[in-house]
């Protein structure tokens, strides 16, 4: 979701910054490794671009299958009632 929100051709640092908005304890190492795994699985497209200093950077864009997987996950969550619980999660106990 953070990769989708960060936009196309996002560097891992941009995705990490996006994640921090909703998850302050996010780990950069986990984000970097997960992006690499997403690219290996074909859920994200990895390309190379140059930054201002002329360094080669890996940038990631969510792929079509990545969007589909995200949509399926959100649909599955919505089907079982989503994240909102009447009376809060304490009411489930």
């Amino acid at each position: 979701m953070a990769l989708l929100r960060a936009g196309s051709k996002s560097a891992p640092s941009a995705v990490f910054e996006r994640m921090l908005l909703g998850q302050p304890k996010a780990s950069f190492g986990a984000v970097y490794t997960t992006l690499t795994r997403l690219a290996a699985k074909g859920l994200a497209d990895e390309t190379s671009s140059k930054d201002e200093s002329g360094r080669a950077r890996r940038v990631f864009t969510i792929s079509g299958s990545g969007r589909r997987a995200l949509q399926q996950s959100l649909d599955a969550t919505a089907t079982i009632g989503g994240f909102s619980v009447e009376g809060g999660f304490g009411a489930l106990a």
Partner: protein
Amino acid sequence: MRWPNPLKLSFFAMLACSGVTLVQSLAPIRPTVGPWLDLAANLFQLLALVIFYLTYEQVVSVLRSVDSSTQVEKIEGRSYIVDYLLPPDIAQDVQANMEEVMPIWIAAHGPQRANRIRRAQVFRIVVGHYATPIVAFSERVLAIVRGA
């Protein structure tokens, strides 16, 4: 105030001692060969010190020029472990990302804790880089086993 180099100070102390010895050897001039030998020895000692000093100056000037030409700008967030343990293209990318993320950690936690976080994340990225193919292989094996 900039203090003089201790090596230079010790050299001048040795030079002074040598001068004193030289004067002492000049004092009891006797018509024998002994004092002249002492004088010659002290002159040689003085000459050796001058040569030592000139050599020292040359070595220091060479070292200073080498030091100024090889000084690398310290960049916040750089890690040599990344350069050593990861392939060059990935290492370059990780370094660039770390430089971008480091200010966020410094602002949130302060420089010392930010450094600790950086080391931990570098470790995690390096381990993750080598573990990813193993995990992918395990997933493929599991998929085959489950499919069968």
